[in-house]
């Protein structure tokens, strides 16, 4: 219950117009701070529902794959320039952003993560690394403005944000592949 309340408070805080407006005024904060925080709010809120309706989740998300697919689709959708633009111009899309990232991405991520086996987790990491590299390259290299709402310099900044994040994931993957935990723990 406590986690649910924290998550809800975070979600409400993020949705307060001046805060939302401030975060959305900078492209990289919009995508790399606001959106992950909305997902995280959903992640926190999910606990209550997982405890209340375990059977529902067991039935539909037994091995975690359906949930994680939903997560990937939703997050993938929100990395597109077009969706960000729409969120800024259409009120309804903005509402959908908050609802989808919390309910349809944060929830399934929490429920699926512990159901996935390590192969699944690694595939997910690798998928996001590739996605981030490609999207990062797209944003850095695009000669034109991709969003009506953001300047080219912001686009390039966001691209570097994606690339550096991808590099961090790669470092992590290298670390877990090449260090043998059983030797130390």
């Amino acid at each position, binding site marked *: 219950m406590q986690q649910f309340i924290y998550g809800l408070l975070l979600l409400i805080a993020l949705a307060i117009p001046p805060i939302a407006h*401030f975060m959305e*005024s*900078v492209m*990289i904060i919009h995508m*790399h*701070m606001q959106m992950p925080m909305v997902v995280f709010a959903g992640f926190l809120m999910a606990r209550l529902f997982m405890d209340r309706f375990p059977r529902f989740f067991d039935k539909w998300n037994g091995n975690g794959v359906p949930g994680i697919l939903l997560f990937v689709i939703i997050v993938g959708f929100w990395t597109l320039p077009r969706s960000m633009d729409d969120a800024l111009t259409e009120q309804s899309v903005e509402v959908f952003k908050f609802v989808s990232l919390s309910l349809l991405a944060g929830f399934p991520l929490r429920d699926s993560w512990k159901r996935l086996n390590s192969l699944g987790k690694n595939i997910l990491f690798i998928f996001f690394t590739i996605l981030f590299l490609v999207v990062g390259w797209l944003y850095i290299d695009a000669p034109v403005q991709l969003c009506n709402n953001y300047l080219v*310099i912001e686009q*390039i*900044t966001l691209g*570097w*944000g994606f690339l*550096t*994040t991808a*590099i*961090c994931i790669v*470092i*992590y993957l290298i*670390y*877990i592949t090449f*260090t043998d935990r059983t*030797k*130390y*723990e």
Partner: protein
Amino acid sequence: METAINQTFKTKATKLLGVNKEDAKISKTYLFVSFVILLVGGFLGLAQGLNRAGLLELPSWLNYYQVLTMHGVFMLLAFTTFFTFGYLYAGLSHELGGLLPKVRKFVWTAFASKIIGAVLVVIPILMNEASVMYTFYPPLKAHPMFYIGLVFFAVGMWLCNVGAFIQVANWRKNNKGKHVPIFSYFATGINVLMFFALIPVAIEVLYLIPWSLGWVKTVNVMVSRTLFWAFGHTLVNIWYLTATSAWYVIAPKLIGGRRWSDTLTRVVIIALVIMNITGGFHHQIIDPGISLPVKMMHVFMSLAIGFPSLMTAWAMFAVFEKTARKQGGKGLIGWYKKMPWGDVRFLALFISMASFAPAGAGGIAQTTNQLDTVVHNTMWIVGHFHLTLGVTVALAFFGISYWLVPYISGRVLTPQINKLGVIQTWIWTIGMIFMSGAMHTVGLFGSPRRTSFTTYGDHATALGWNPYMMAMAVGGTLLIIGVILQVYAVINMMFFAPRGETEFPIAEAEENASPTPYWTERWGLWIVVMLLVVAMAYVVPLTEFIVNAPPGSPGFKTW
């Protein structure tokens, strides 16, 4: 398995036989060099203080800015680096059953590299070819040898970091599933932070070398400053973390108590490692080219470091009070009487900690844009870092020396030297109160830092600074007495004090503590989190500086 047994046997052996001879030689050499540098650096500081008070005119072959560059480099970089590694490696050797032969090789190679580096840095300064201060901001251009020396020095630091990693990893292999002992845990955090903090400045210097050689015509000033402070800020915090390690691990033992919560101690270390590098931006609050929202974000990032730092203060006072009450201390403040004030090892650590209160408060003020516009580049800043570095860090190092030097030299701390140390500690404290107090005040009145004596054509405002400058000179004079006493004490304890066993005072964990969770050992994970935080902080401004760069700047020799 065999090595494991071997290892525990060795651990017990060093506990019984005291310090390992070869490892002691390492620490002795590092500490000796460190205090010699302190001695020279102290006289340079005195020369500056006397000059600014109008009492001393420096000769043309050694002008104010040469002295200032050398004082900064010696004190901020060399004294501290040599001390830290002498101290950390003594602890690693003590706690982890002696250094591995391979690690010793690393540390000696590192020593050679650092000495070569230091010589290469000092020569051009003495030739008046590198009066660029320890910050070496372009477009000020030094002789290439200066930058090459810095590279050697940095490589020396890196080798020491890697040596420590090897030592700790080896111990973990032989002690599966156990927590790295607390002192070595501090050492790990400090080395991780240093290893990564050196990367940005190495990139900067590797660019400045071809620029100073004339192969590249221009340099991006904002990028250089940003890369420098990612390092410079972190470096200062590394010295702070080194001092903190003594507060947490050593101080409780000296007063006969136990450590504060093991879990929370480790969490503080992790937090300081993760959040530190991004604090560099608070040194650039007045820099152009950084937009206000980004500066705003960095105020929060800086203040975030304040949180674990404040936790530290709270934790230490809790430990002191608990111990003192156990020993019969009473009343709201009466328990203070139970503390061993006559023991220099404790007194110096205590004043080091207490000084962090005003130092931290000043730091928080400077992090605020509006307040910083008043004090930026004034003597206030110099007052601030003589509190943080000159008291919090330096006094902690001095306090450590009174047991560490006897420990590695197989000698004891005599009552005479203890008394001398207590006197030294008070002289240092009073000297710094004078000097730093005067610097803070005169800074508020606008007296600039990094400026040799001038009355600005007898301008009334500038003349009004003079009384404070006198107070500064008085403080500086007391401080040089302090330096001399301190160096004398170190030499005495290293070579002349009576032989005997001195303990490496590591406090036990608190009683019936809950077990520390194992995730505190997952450094790989924390490093990745740290890198993510760094990326978050630096991507926005660096992209802006590079993509929207103004024409680069050629080098200038303004002196």
